[in-house]
């Protein structure tokens, strides 16, 4: 869409009484190649296309979208939204304008055309993943391997004169293994991803990740049920950061704060964790899955220190959230696509490295659980209650690692668990994930070094 058409639509929105108006134009090309059961099961390509219009009247946010880009359809969208608006709500000072003309998106090497699957290594990668996993053990019963590629072009225009464009590329490979033994079945999976083109595949050690997934599935076949009760737990690095993401990250978004639905409301400047804990949300890490050059309302990405040596410093905010809650903007406005209004979301969120070694933490914990690899989980931000699955776990007895256990979950409340993070390791790692919230699914990294939490409730076999 050209800037002059955008300006006419934005003027129309202002003339209908909006204090602020914004257009988000997106065209995204997807392609995927999937292998399962030793066969290439699907090859697909797709185009997502649409325009989202946001209008702010006082503290009301109106949002609508359409896949039709002609001026008449856009004008009708704006008129319909303005007409549907119930008259209520107070004035909100949106603060400093977001202005400027800029082109972002330097990460365009290796952008794939979906037809090039044979040429760019995708076929080889999924076949290698399959062969490697099957070679690990005769107990490997099934292997799925998928390569996904997403290439997005966006433009944002607002009524304050903003005109920015960005190109964003993501690539990801997933290997999922099922192992079987005497009717019992267990799974293991790995799914690395980066903000890069398909050259990502050439640097990827497919053999290693496929072996990791297969090993885990096979190992968990012989795992016994996890114990139950409160105990010290050493949570592994990398994807272990999902607990911080869910139980502390979401409650630190202004989407929670503006609904007064977070236990951290009003606690900026207070100690909410031990001094060994510093947590950061960083959108600027080159190539990282959750990085952004510019956020989805046109602010450049930032690095935001959330908790510094145990003290709460700030929240993650979008423009409306920052204005409503009186916190600084953090360049965190994100959305899955044009269907969603942008709100504050995490980017790459992690607990900063400390100085403890894994051996030292194991030795200090006595009897407990080593949750080497976490599965997913969920949290209720309003109450802080969370629940996470341990995908790969081991019992620790007298500081020594013993047998594998399955079926453990970690349960608690984020703000109560934070001060129980007693030791922080030096082995910081990141892991990509997909985070779901009110503005849809966005790519994020979680991350942490190994951390010792004492105690935390483990759900398992009583």
């Amino acid at each position, binding site marked *: 869409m050209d800037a002059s058409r955008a300006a006419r639509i934005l003027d129309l929105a202002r003339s209908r009484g909006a204090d602020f108006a914004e257009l988000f134009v997106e065209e995204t090309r997807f392609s995927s190649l999937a292998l399962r059961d030793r066969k290439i099961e*699907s090859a697909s390509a797709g185009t997502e296309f649409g325009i989202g219009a946001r209008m702010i009247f006082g503290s009301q946010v109106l949002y609508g979208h359409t896949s039709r880009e002609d001026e008449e359809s856009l004008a009708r969208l704006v008129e319909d939204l303005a007409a549907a608006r119930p008259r*209520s709500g107070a004035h909100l000072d949106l603060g400093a304008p977001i202005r400027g003309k800029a082109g972002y998106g330097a990460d365009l090497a290796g952008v794939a055309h979906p037809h090039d699957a044979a040429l760019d290594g995708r076929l080889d990668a999924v076949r290698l993943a399959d062969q490697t996993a099957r070679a690990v053990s005769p107990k490997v019963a099934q292997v799925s391997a998928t390569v996904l590629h997403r290439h997005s072009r966006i433009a944002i225009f607002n009524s304050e004169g903003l005109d920015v464009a960005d190109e964003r590329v993501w690539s990801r490979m997933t290997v999922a293994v099922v192992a079987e033994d005497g009717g019992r079945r267990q799974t293991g999976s790995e799914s690395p991803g980066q903000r890069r083109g398909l050259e990502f595949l050439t640097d990827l050690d497919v053999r290693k990740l496929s072996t990791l997934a297969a090993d885990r599935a096979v190992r968990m076949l012989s795992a016994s049920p996890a114990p139950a009760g409160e105990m010290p737990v050493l949570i592994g690095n990398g994807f272990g950061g999902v607990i911080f993401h869910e139980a502390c990250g979401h409650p630190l978004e202004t989407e929670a704060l503006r609904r007064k639905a977070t236990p951290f409301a009003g606690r900026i400047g207070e100690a909410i964790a031990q001094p060994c804990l510093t947590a950061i949300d960083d959108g600027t890490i080159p190539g990282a899955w959750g990085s952004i050059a510019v956020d989805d309302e046109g602010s450049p990405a930032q690095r935001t220190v959330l908790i510094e040596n145990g003290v709460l410093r700030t929240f993650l905010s979008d423009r409306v959230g920052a204005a409503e809650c009186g916190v600084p903007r953090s360049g965190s406005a994100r959305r899955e696509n044009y269907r969603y209004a942008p709100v504050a979301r995490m980017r790459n969120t992690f607990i900063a490295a400390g100085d403890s070694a894994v051996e030292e933490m194991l030795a200090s914990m006595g009897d407990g659980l080593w949750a080497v690899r976490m599965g997913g989980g969920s949290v209720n931000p309003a109450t802080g209650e969370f629940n996470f699955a341990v995908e790969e776990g081991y019992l620790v007895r007298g500081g020594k690692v013993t047998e594998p256990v399955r079926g453990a979950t970690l349960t608690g409340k984020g703000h109560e668990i934070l001060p129980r993070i007693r030791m922080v390791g030096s082995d910081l790692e990141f892991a990509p994930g997909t985070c779901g919230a009110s503005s849809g699914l966005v790519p994020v990294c979680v991350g942490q070094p190994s951390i010792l939490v004492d105690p935390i409730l483990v759900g398992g076999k009583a």
Partner: protein
Amino acid sequence: MTQGLGAEEALERIMAAAKRAGAQACDAVFDESESLSLEVFESAVKNLERSDSVGIGLRVLVDGRPGYSFTERLTAEAVDRCAEDAVALSRFTDPIDIDLPGAAAPDAEDLELVPPGAREWTPDAMLQACLEAEEAARAADRRVQNVPHLGGTRSKGRMLLANSNGFRGVRESVSVSFGVGVVARESGVDKMGWDGISWRDSRLLRPSDMAREAVVRATSLLGAAPIPSGSIPVLFDERVSGQFLGIFLGAFLADSVQKGQSRLVGKMGERIAVEGFHLSTEPRLKGMAGSKRFDAEGIPTKPRRLVDDGVLRDFLHNLETSRREGRAPTGDATRGYTGKVSAGFANLQIDATKGNSTNELLGRYPRVLHVVKLEGSTGCNPVSGDISIGVQGFVVEHGRSTPVDRVSLSGNFFDLLMRLTALGDRYRPGVHSSFVPAVLVSEMDLAS
């Protein structure tokens, strides 16, 4: 200018382009939907969203090799390119053996997905419903601290399916939904209660009653305390039983079974659940979310029992999986325009048992855990059947009910089917696609 093609026009064009590019057969699905939703916080409209979505998805077969593509841009050029992409991609895939159906015999059954006489729910009426609900919630109990989630949505959708053998089908539906989430506080502890429902007609919504129900659900959990770990009989309320069992029902997909990703491999004809347990797919229920006359490949639907009196009798099939077993198509295929063909329950039903009220079921054991809320399903593995899940609810001992906190349950889904001692007498209300009564299980491991 680029107004975009209409549904029928886009379908005919994409299939013609696929044929030109070399596809011998193809099918295409067109989806369009419109919705309007409104959210209120502290008596003011926070968000008003209007969604207008459209997309077309294509599957081609070239020498039996499938290729998939989709586009939300519906210009003639974009649609043609989409068809060329699918054909080009088909050369990478392994062949499948399917025959697409021809034009369907007339099927005039009215599934009541668009009720006659329903008026469009206006934003002003939605706001009014929210304000009423918020007032009712705040007046219901002084411990109500916050109403962070409050809003309504109206939506309508149309799906068209066409294939190169002449099948043409259309499905239209409308719905409204309303939800309210309340936080209650006592002694510094917060508990959330939620009530939400969908109907086809906004006149059926009862916002104030729902708000009061959400308040009761929140306040009844206040004062919750941990209880000793151990094994305990568990009643999953009908509010959560469908969500809970639903985690594991991928085991009934023929595709998972054929590819070794289901624990039900080799169990056909065997007892997998207790007597009296009937599981079926019910595509012909009136007005329900999963109701449909034809599936995503154009096969007519019909109700089918997969588990009959505890014995495994059938799986869910699409054309590819049924052909692999040399049987007739069953009509369970599912597909969205962005994805590939899979299979699934239309409406899932586990038969209820007359006379089994919640109170009656709670009285069957001296001490029962009554689960009314799940804390997320990620500790449950649909392949292994392993269950590890945080729950909220009550311990009921001789009719006395005490809320419990920080409780998680573990076990295995496939064992649980054999330990299921009774089913409740009703399903949760509203328009949805999962009809599961309360489920009473003789024992599970509880950690607290």
